[in-house]
């Protein structure tokens, strides 16, 4: 009984982990920076492909193949990728912030959604052209693959266990950052009232860009983690966007705690549907999202700013 409950929890968390990591950056952008950024999902997509070429030497299709590459990659392995992928995507995030988010920040929200959606599709098609449209998989080294016997749970996927662990560490670090650093204070303040913070003589542009970059880096590492669990293809970004948006809205825009709780609830709905009514697995998370948004208009944890 306890064993099955624990393995149920494990299942829930393993589904929730990737959702939460992607949704975090999205939640910060939408809640704190007040910008509806669908391109966020492209950062997840980039993360997956960057990890792919750092870790192994995958056979590629598309333009790369036509250009003479039968394989395209560095083959450095998993650990360098875990370090480098978020750093690179952080950089991409800064570029995105400067050239897309800031110029569009005074446009209305519908325009923001449409333009960033268009950019996401463009990113997706570019990946398809570069790498081809066939699926890719990342092979993991021995320490990150195979089963792991957990006391009280049974055998689980070793890598899934690490993924949950990495997610917990990253989310904990983010909460601490917000709570304990001056930077976090400024960002929180700016979320509440950007004008007031500016009046106090604090430049908000820099913290904004930095916060955006952090969100991007989290999406990048999520791309790596998702890409090492599931097959990689160019439609990955669009596929993760919809559940990620729902996590953000259900949790409350800008609330990190809300993102964690909503992501976990989605995982729970998924795992429950799986054991009770497998046909409804896909539909379950949408139902949960609809109900939450109906009952809590601002999401579970409000949207008045980044909360603890």
């Amino acid at each position, binding site marked *: 009984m306890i064993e099955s409950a624990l393995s149920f929890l494990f299942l829930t968390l393993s589904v929730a982990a990737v959702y939460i990591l992607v949704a975090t950056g999205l939640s910060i952008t939408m809640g704190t920076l007040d910008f509806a950024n669908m391109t966020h999902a492209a950062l997840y997509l980039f993360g997956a492909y960057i990890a792919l070429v750092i870790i192994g030497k995958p056979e590629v299709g598309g333009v790369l193949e036509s250009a003479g590459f039968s394989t395209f990659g560095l083959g450095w392995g998993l650990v360098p990728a875990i370090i480098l992928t978020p750093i690179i995507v952080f950089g991409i995030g800064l570029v995105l912030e400067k050239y897309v988010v800031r110029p569009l920040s005074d446009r209305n929200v519908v325009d923001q959604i449409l333009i960033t959606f268009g950019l996401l599709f463009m990113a997706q098609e570019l990946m398809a052209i570069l790498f081809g449209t066939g699926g890719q*998989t990342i092979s993991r080294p021995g320490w990150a693959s195979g089963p792991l016997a957990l006391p009280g749970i049974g055998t689980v*996927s070793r890598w899934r266990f690490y993924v949950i662990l990495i997610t917990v560490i990253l989310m904990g670090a983010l909460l601490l950052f917000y709570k304990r650093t001056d930077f976090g204070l400024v960002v929180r303040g700016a979320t509440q009232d950007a004008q007031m913070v500016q009046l106090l003589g604090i430049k908000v542009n820099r913290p904004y860009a930095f916060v955006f970059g952090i969100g991007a880096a989290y999406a990048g590492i999520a791309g790596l983690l998702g890409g090492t669990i599931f097959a990689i*293809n160019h439609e990955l970004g669009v596929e993760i966007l919809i559940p990620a948006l729902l996590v953000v809205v259900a949790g409350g825009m800008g609330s990190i705690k809300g993102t964690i709780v909503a992501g976990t609830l989605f995982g729970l709905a998924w795992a429950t549907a799986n054991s009770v009514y*497998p046909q409804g697995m896909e539909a379950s998370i949408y139902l949960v999202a609809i109900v939450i948004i109906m009952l809590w208009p601002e999401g579970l944890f409000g949207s008045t700013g980044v909360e603890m």
Partner: protein
Amino acid sequence: MRNENTDSSRRDILRKTGAVGTAGIVGMAGCLGDEDPDLGNYPPEGDTVTFGLNAPQSGILAPDGVVQFDAFEMALDHLNEGGGWVDMWDDLSGDGVLEYEVEGTTADSAGDGEASRENVQRMIEQDNIQMWTGGVSSGVAETLQEVAQQERVPYMVNLSTSNLITGEHATRYSFRTAAPTYMLGAGVADVLPDELGDDLDFYQIYLDYSFGITGRESMLENLEEAGWTEVGAQSIPEGETDYSAHLSSAMDSDADVVILSTFGDALTNALSQASDRGLKDEMEIVVTTMSNFSLEPASEHIEGVYGTTDWNAERDDEYSQAFVEEYEDRFDETPGFAAKLVYENVLLYAEAVERADTFNPPEVIRELEDYEYDHTGVGDAHMRECDHQAHRMVPVVRGLSEEEQEETGLYVELVEEAPQDVTTYGCDEGPAADVDLGDHGD
């Protein structure tokens, strides 16, 4: 149930009026006289005919799609210039088909029903194709069969294995040379009990649509007949990539064998998640259809996995070897069965045209019906009249280790071929019992 009013007669008028339209709208009433039994895109205009390929270049099926474009190009070249099977088959000349030069038109099905219908409609209306082929998912193939019947353009179904294609949804204008899951099930049931043991328990995980559902039913029926017992089964929605919960249930069931009726990225995910869970140490894995597009990305996880293919490049009959040689010469890689099916379907149709001595669809169809042949690299085969399904052997195969894959260029090795007389079934049995083909149109 089938909508029998055809679009084809309209299209003839369309083409004629189109041609006249170039000269001006006036004075075209005279063009509508019936001089011959026009049907579909018959008769072809000019001295070329066009064949179509609707196959995935994007979407989850893409890895098997790209090779189909290569094989299609090769088939057309051989028809026009000779080479490969065209030189080996008596009825084909290597100088076009009925002295028409053959041109190709292709479209990306994207693994999507809407896109496929639009593509095929374009190829029929704009490119005036005489036939088309191409591998698409089973559900899409089933809807395209209807289009073939309505538009009176023959469709050689490729790669799709759902029973319904040559069962409930079979049409007069569509044929399939690939084995349906019902035959695959019979093949597995014939070979695996000898290989793995009698009285085993099995657990099934299957995609919740036609391909998976009929795959599961076929395995169930055939394997229980062979003395195995299904101890559980769970469907997974199309599009879901996370198999972890299903794999847990399979492991909890204490079954000896887990059978996966899924494909593409979903199968890749299932296999890699299965090896992550150490499932292979506890039970055998069987995959209903092992196609390259599923196996290539999953290559590190397929060692020892059992399954069926439609055809394997290591088969050593003269036709298989000739095809492999031609394909390797041209594209520098070992062909999988997706490529071979396209090649074989184009040539079988062309051969039937030559035998019928006309592109007129009903006569070509009659040539293909009740046709017995042995020149497509699958041994003796019989394209039956009652269900438009080729009845032939089924190869049961086992996945190779990565080193072996590198050595051989193949993903699987042959365990045993289940012969035609084991895999076949009566016209009143299995899927064939539900067939209602519709008319020839003449």
